[in-house]
């Protein structure tokens, strides 16, 4: 018997002539937590499907728990102890907790009739494995995302799992829920179960895994002990590029372009005062409900403050709405760029110039084709948007490039203040660094930027000053160079 629960070698798989996997290998030892990382499209999901028997590899060998397979069915995989926790958890929202836990077992046993006594027993046993307490009669759709995931995990354990594959398990979880999930993963490990943790989130990889394997473009890039890996190397393996990790310092103290004085909005924030200078990147962080989103939406004219004032370049202003905010040079990129910011089926050109059309049109509102072309060309070049034809729909671009189009639209408006809410949510690591670099270069040219983010490493890496909000007020203002993620977390939760 080998020490490996899973050993795949030189796996190749093509779909219609496109090579998704160009000969990858992966070894997972018994009882280890192994992280499989890589950017979107690197072949992670394809390998999972091969290991769980859903796809058949074109070439290569699979060895599961000491047994070699040339062809493997999903049933073979399950029988050898492989269980996959899918990103959508594969639960039945309309059925009760106990049915969700027990149905798979009953199907495996080829039962024709249902015994609720047996189902209850199986379900109780499943929950007991993780010491979880859930109402067995509750419908799963009434549970939180984390609890649905727990059900998927408990269900997997019923099948004498030896290898549990978790596909991007933290995507929809809050920080607290991620912590709880990690505790569970450790517990599974203690029982001798191997975990293949698939993720592209660098912090999670460092926190949970013992060994790692990184894919890029369907090939192995690196594998080894996580303890011997640093952030820089990780990012380099993932993206194939180098990025600097220094925090940003504005070259000179700029003038105050935007200031809030004792600003209040009932139910959201109270008595807030701060200044924003040209050339700085101000990070605002805090838990959901701390009032951070409402604050910036107030500055952008979406809400009307109950009291207090806003000053633009030293003059008191009344922002009557979004249009008036834009006229004053304030731009806002919302959190969900896909649903809020872009007209996905429309061309890149139209998306960039949409908020500037009145200035790009001549007499009687006729659009000036040439002027528009020049404007768009300028931004595509400056922001290095990866497209060779700006007349294509925006939805043909990758997430990071879509984000750049949103930025271009705002920059086309000659802004002095740009507010970004969660600018890199759902963007892969390479594009994330690109966007950070872009923000810096914009700030260097004199733009004042506010970044709202949950992603603490991002806040530390790309801002020059951090404002931590808690319960509708400013808890503290910090210098990113002299603080840590932990400190930020403590301040926002009020633990400190």
């Amino acid at each position: 018997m080998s020490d490996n629960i899973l050993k795949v070698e030189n796996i190749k798989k093509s779909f219609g002539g496109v090579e998704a996997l160009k000969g990858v290998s992966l070894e997972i030892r018994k009882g280890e937590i192994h992280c499989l990382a890589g950017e979107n499209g690197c072949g992670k999901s394809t390998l999972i499907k091969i290991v769980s028997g859903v796809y058949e590899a074109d070439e290569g060998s699979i060895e599961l728990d000491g047994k070699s397979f040339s062809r493997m069915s999903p049933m073979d995989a399950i029988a050898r102890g492989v269980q996959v926790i899918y990103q959508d958890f594969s639960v039945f929202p309309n059925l009760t907790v106990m049915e969700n836990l027990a149905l798979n077992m009953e199907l495996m046993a080829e039962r024709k009739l249902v015994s609720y006594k047996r189902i209850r027993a199986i379900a109780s046993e499943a929950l007991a494995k993780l010491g979880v307490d859930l109402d067995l009669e509750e419908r799963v759709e009434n549970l939180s995302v984390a609890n649905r995931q727990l059900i998927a995990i408990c269900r997997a354990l019923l099948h004498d799992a030896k290898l549990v594959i978790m596909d991007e398990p933290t995507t929809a979880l809050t920080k607290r829920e991620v912590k709880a999930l990690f505790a569970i993963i450790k517990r599974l490990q203690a029982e001798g179960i191997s975990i293949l943790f698939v993720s592209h989130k660098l912090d999670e990889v460092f926190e949970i895994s013992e060994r790692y394997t990184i894919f890029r473009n369907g090939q192995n890039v690196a594998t080894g002990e996580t303890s011997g890996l640093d952030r820089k190397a990780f990012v380099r393996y993932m993206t194939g590029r180098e990025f600097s990790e220094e925090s940003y310092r504005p070259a000179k103290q700029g003038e105050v372009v935007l200031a809030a004085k004792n600003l209040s909005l009932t139910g959201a924030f109270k008595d807030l005062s701060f200044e924003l200078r040209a050339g700085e990147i101000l990070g605002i962080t805090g838990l959901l409900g701390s009032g951070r989103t409402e604050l910036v939406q107030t500055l952008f004219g979406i809400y009307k403050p109950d009291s207090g004032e806003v000053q633009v370049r030293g003059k008191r202003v009344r922002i009557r709405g979004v249009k008036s905010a834009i006229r004053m040079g304030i731009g806002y990129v919302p959190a969900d760029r896909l649903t809020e910011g872009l007209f996905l089926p429309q061309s890149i050109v139209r998306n960039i110039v949409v908020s500037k059309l009145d200035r790009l049109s001549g007499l009687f509102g006729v659009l000036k084709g040439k002027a528009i072309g020049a404007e768009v060309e300028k931004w595509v070049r400056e922001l290095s948007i990866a497209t060779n034809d700006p007349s294509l729909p925006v939805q043909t671009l990758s997430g990071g490039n879509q984000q750049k189009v949103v930025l271009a639209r705002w920059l086309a408006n000659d802004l002095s203040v740009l507010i970004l809410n969660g600018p890199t949510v759902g963007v892969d690591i390479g594009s994330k660094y690109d966007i950070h670099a872009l923000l810096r270069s914009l700030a260097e040219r004199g733009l004042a930027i506010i970044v709202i983010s949950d992603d603490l490493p991002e806040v530390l890496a790309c801002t020059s000053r951090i404002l931590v909000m808690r319960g509708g007020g400013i808890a503290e203002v910090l210098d990113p160079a002299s603080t840590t993620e932990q400190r930020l977390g403590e301040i926002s939760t009020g633990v400190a």
Partner: protein
Amino acid sequence: MINMRRMAKRSEPYVFGAIVLLCLLIQVQSKQFFTGNNLVDLARSMIVPALFSIGAMMVIVSGGIDVSFPAIASLAMYATDRILLNVNYSGNVMLAYAMAAGFGLAMGAVNALLIGVLRLPTLVVTLGTSSLFTGIMQGALAASESPVPPSILAHGKEKLFTATNTQLGLTSDMPSQILILLGALLLVFLLLRYTMLGRGIYAIGGDEAAARRAGFNVVGVKVFIYCFVGAMAGVTGMVRASMMMNAHPTNLLGMEMTVIAAVVLGGTRVTGGLGTLTGTMLGVALMIILSNSLILIGIPTYWTRVFTGAVIIIGTGVTAWQAGGSGRRLASSGTGL
């Protein structure tokens, strides 16, 4: 305590409440609602729509929609009737039911093939087959009203008991076909609750991909549903013919809308996954009581459609509002650990 909370989320209590209110209104207006013969009349009127609604509910729970059942019922019933008339059949009525079920099953199999195996959208398929089956009836069978064979006529006159209204001395007969409804309810209840096949219907309606991964034979379950519902429709057609003592090829057509409205009123989720027999029967009861009591309430004929429409809109609206409510709950649900 927990059960009370869960009950409040279900729609059955609301439909039941609406029925109670409606009954009280009718009673106040006519003094005739809670009389033996009126209740028997209502039960009788419920038989055919209730039988249809059982099948419609199963289909909707599985995530589909079926509008072809009246056409299947009509053609199955009519073909059976004509064949039996042609051979001068005078034997047991069970053969008539078995034949109608067989024809229904065959037509259901057409739906099953197109929906289960070829994966075409259910609404499009059943609209198409509905038209097809009606067309066969018109074209190939040149259908027109026709009498029923003697054994079915006798079956139509059978009664379980006669209820008498003591006030007015009116009598109403409970037809024996109600036993078929009760039998179907019991059968489907056991099927849905105590067989893996039944749970598979719910599972597919909840998440088809998850059902496939869990090991349900999704195609098999769908084929079963449409065949079963087809057979049930065939039996229902024969029930109608025997109760009316006449085989009318078109008077079931158009019933699909009332039946589906009743199923949705009863809390069956339009997108699939949720639905109970209790709720469905309550929904049918509400629709039937309503449509058979407008004269008792004293609503003039000219206003009956307005009244019925309003009740359907309010009823389904409340159901939809509740569904929206559960969606909102979901979005704001906090951490669970």
